[in-house]
Every structure is written in C-alpha cells, then in structure tokens.
C-alpha cells in the first residue's frame, strides 16, 4: 500500500574474475531516477562495497539485491519432467526451476547457501541463472531459430542449443578451471605451437596473412557437411594460427594478451561442447549452423573469427550489459 511512496532500489551484483561490479538502479513508479555502476576489487564483499551499497539501501526499505549465479555446478536440462531430469543430471543436491514448462535450469544448493552466506551483510533477494538471462536476452531469436546461444562472462561461459524454444543442449563452463580432457588436449597442442613461435620470435614484415589465408576461401563455399573432416585439418593450419596471432599483435602491440588466450580457450570449450552435443546420444542432436553470442565481457573478434573459420558457424555477437540485464530480470521478477 505504502510501497509506491518509496523508491525501489535494485542492487545488481556481477561477480567477475577478481572484481565485483555493482550496478544500482533507483526507481520511482517505474521511472529510473538514478543509476550508478561501480567496480570493486573483491570477489565477495568488502567494506568499501558494503558502504557503497548501504548508501543506497538506506534510501528505501524496498531494496532488492540480485546476483547472477556463479556456481560452477549449474546447468540446464532439456526437460521439466521430474522423471526425465535424472537422465541428464542428478538434482538431489541441486535447486532447480522450470522455464516456461519447456526446460529446466539448476544450480548447486550448497553454492546457493555459500552465496547467501557471503552476501549476508546485505542479503540476497534474487539469484538468476545465466541460462535464464540467455533465454531472455535472445528471446526474439530463440523462439524462431535453431541455433547455439552463448553467454560469455569474464570467468564463465554458458552455452545452450535451442531449436525454436526447445532446449537441446546446455553447458556451463568455467573458462579458467573447467577444462575437459578434449579441450585440454587441443589447447596443449595449440599452446605448444604458439610457444614455438614465441621462442623463435615474430618478424612482422615476413608475415603475409592474406596470402597464407587465400586457400581458406575454398572452405567458405563448403556446403557438404562431410567436409568437416577437412576442417580439422584446417584447424591445425599454422597459417591461421599465425594470422590469428598477427592480428593480436597488431591490435595490442606485440603482447600475447590474456584476451587472446581466453578467447581461444572459450573457443576450445565451445568446440568441445559442440562435439559432446553431437556425440552424446541423450541429446537430440541437430546440426547447428548459427551461433549467437551475448558478449558480457568484451570478447575480441578472434572468437567470432575462430568460430566462423574453424567451425563454419554463422556468428552473431550482441553486447550485453550483464548488470543491467540482471536488473531487468529482477524488475520482471518483482512485477510478476
């Protein structure tokens, strides 16, 4: 009754690798009267961050704290049926929700408690799954396309394959820690090659990326999926690696940036995920041609290029402000 007299304060927390971004939105009767974003060098909550949040929570008793789930033991399952959930994941120690009676998403109950404990000084009202965010962000595409949708965070990667709103496959991966064997093997192989280049040194004048990539044009016309075997060969191409590396050097003045490593790792994780999607029988396998990336951390063009060139996917990248998107979810959740 008196709630409308007060401001509504939405505090949205995005946990990054070593930082925490806090986006605060103050609403008065659904009108944004102020929004502010601040980044703190903490992975939990420090005094500075607490003071910053309390400054705004003190303005109204109607404040809501929302956070994007960071649990590494989370994911999504292509069913809502309790009988079938077990086929995909053991949810006995997980909290799971159903999304529009089509598919489910889950997270570790233990991690949820840990999250609530970490943010006890301010409390937590909403914990959103990145898959929900992905589904809401690409709502227009998911409803009508068969594609792979990826939410790229600084530390995590949430991948889902949707066929006209039907979830076929989903995977949540830690970019740094979670490397399955496949990814590791490929990564090690490529890292070895890269290191050899680094040891030898790079002469920019000697490199002619356009010439060396000319043969790639042949691949652009590939329509026959059987040619995928050749793609593996293409993936091993040193030229492409060089080209990839060259661009990095040109962009960031001769340093092998962390961004490149991460994007490359992301690519490997995506590649391994796609392989898993195609190989595991429990997933309704369909050939994926398009990938929509929600870029929440500023990935380089390399990832796009890598996906296009290595996996022959049509890649569409949309920038996503994770904090604002969490805020939108919180607002929608509150008004539901």
């Amino acid at each position, binding site marked *: 009754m*008196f*709630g409308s007299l*007060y401001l509504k304060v939405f505090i949205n927390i995005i946990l990054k690798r070593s930082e925490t971004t806090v986006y605060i939105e103050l609403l008065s009767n659904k009108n944004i009267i102020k929004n502010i974003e601040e980044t703190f060098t903490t992975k939990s909550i420090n005094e500075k961050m607490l003071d910053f949040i309390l400054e705004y929570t003190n303005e109204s*008793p*109607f*404040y*809501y704290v*929302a956070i994007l*789930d960071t649990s590494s033991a989370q994911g999504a399952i292509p069913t809502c049926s309790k009988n079938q959930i077990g086929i995909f994941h053991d949810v006995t120690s997980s*909290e799971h*929700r159903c*999304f529009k009676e089509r598919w489910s998403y889950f*997270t570790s109950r233990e991690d*949820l408690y840990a999250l*609530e404990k970490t943010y006890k000084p301010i*409390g*937590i*009202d*909403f*914990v*959103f*799954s990145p898959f*929900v965010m992905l589904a809401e962000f690409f709502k227009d595409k998911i409803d009508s396309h068969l594609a792979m949708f990826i939410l790229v965070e600084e530390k995590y990667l949430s991948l889902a394959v949707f066929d006209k709103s039907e979830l076929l496959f989903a995977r949540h991966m830690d970019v740094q820690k979670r490397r399955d064997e496949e990814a590791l093997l490929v990564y090690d192989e490529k890292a070895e090659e890269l290191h050899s280049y680094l040891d030898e040194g790079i002469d920019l004048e000697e490199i002619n990326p356009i010439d060396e990539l000319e043969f790639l044009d042949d691949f652009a016309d590939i329509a026959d999926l059987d040619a995928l075997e050749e793609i593996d060969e293409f993936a091993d191409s040193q030229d492409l690696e060089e080209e990839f590396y060259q661009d990095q050097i040109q962009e960031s003045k001769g340093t092998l940036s962390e961004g490149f490593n991460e994007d490359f790792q992301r690519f490997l994780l995506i590649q391994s995920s796609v392989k898993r999607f195609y190989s595991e029988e429990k997933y309704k396998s369909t050939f994926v041609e398009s990938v929509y990336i929600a870029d929440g951390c500023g990935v380089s063009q390399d990832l796009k290029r890598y996906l296009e060139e290595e996996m022959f996917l049509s890649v569409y990248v949309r920038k996503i402000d994770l904090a604002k998107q969490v805020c939108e*979810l*919180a607002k*929608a*959740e*509150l008004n*539901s």
Partner: protein
Amino acid sequence: MRYSYTKPRKKSIFTPELKLAITFFMITLGMLFLTYGFLSFKDFSFQSQKAEMIQKRFDLGEAIEAMKAEVALINKESLLGERITTQNSVLKDSITNLFDLIPQRITLSEASLLENGLILHGITPNKDIYNFMLQAPLRSIFHKTYSSFYPLSNGWLRFVSTNYIEDDSFENNMTGTTKEKTAEEGEDEN
C-alpha cells in the same frame, strides 16, 4: 514469471529508524493519553464531588430549614407547655385555694371545674354557715354565683353552687393577671 532460485525477502516500510520514531511517538502519545485520561478522571471525580457537595449543601439547607421549623414548633410547644404548666399551676393553686375555701363544717361531695366556672356539690349543716363561710369567698372570686339547697333527712342541706367568671376576667386570669373583682350579689333560688 519465477526465474530466481530464491524468493525475495519480505520488505516492510517499518525500517529500524521508522520503528524507533514510531515507538517514540507511541510512547509520547501514550503518555499524553494517560495524562489526558488521568486529568479527565480527576475532572470527573471533582465534578462528582462538586455535585455531591452541592446536593449535600442543598440537603443540609433543607435539613436546617426542617430543623428551624422543628425548633419553632418546639419553641411553640415549649411555650404551650409553659402556658399549660402555668395554667396547671394556676389550676392547682385554684384547686388548693378552692379546698382552702371550703370550711371544716361543710363537706364537698363533688366539684366540677369548668373553663369559666366552678360547680360545687356538697352538704352543709345550715345555710348560714354556707353563706358566710363559703359563698362569701366564692363571690369574691366569681362574678356570678348561684346556689341551690336541698334539705336532707338529717336536717342538713345539700347544696349546689354554680359560679361563673365573665369572659374578660377569665382571659385575664389565664394570662396570669389576677384582678380583684368585686363579687356581685348572688341570687338565692331558695
């Protein structure tokens, strides 16, 4: 839409600061109401006491009036008593005097005291004794004296003496004023 793993905590407009302020105002208001109630009660009590006092004063006034009336009545009764006492004294004196008047040789058989008169019945040895020894003093007292004689078998006479005082003289006697009156001559019916 329920996408969050957790439910939002219940929000209340009653923040700790607001609770403190409300508590403070409630206590203040409570104290004010208590004071108001106490004063109202006291006022009511005083009003009741005042009404009681007024009623008491009225009752006492009435009682005083009743007592005054009673005092007046008692005074009147006292006066009446005094008057009766006086009258009785007078009567007693009169009777004493009457019996003093009766000579040894005359015997009274009946004496009737009237308001303004005296009727005596008795026996006398003879008329002379009666006339000289009884009728003379009676005439000095009463204005009118009538005597009747009846002879008895032994030779004595039975007499009836009727004596009256005139009204004015009677009134004067009653107020204690003794007036000497000259006896008028009586008439003998014999």
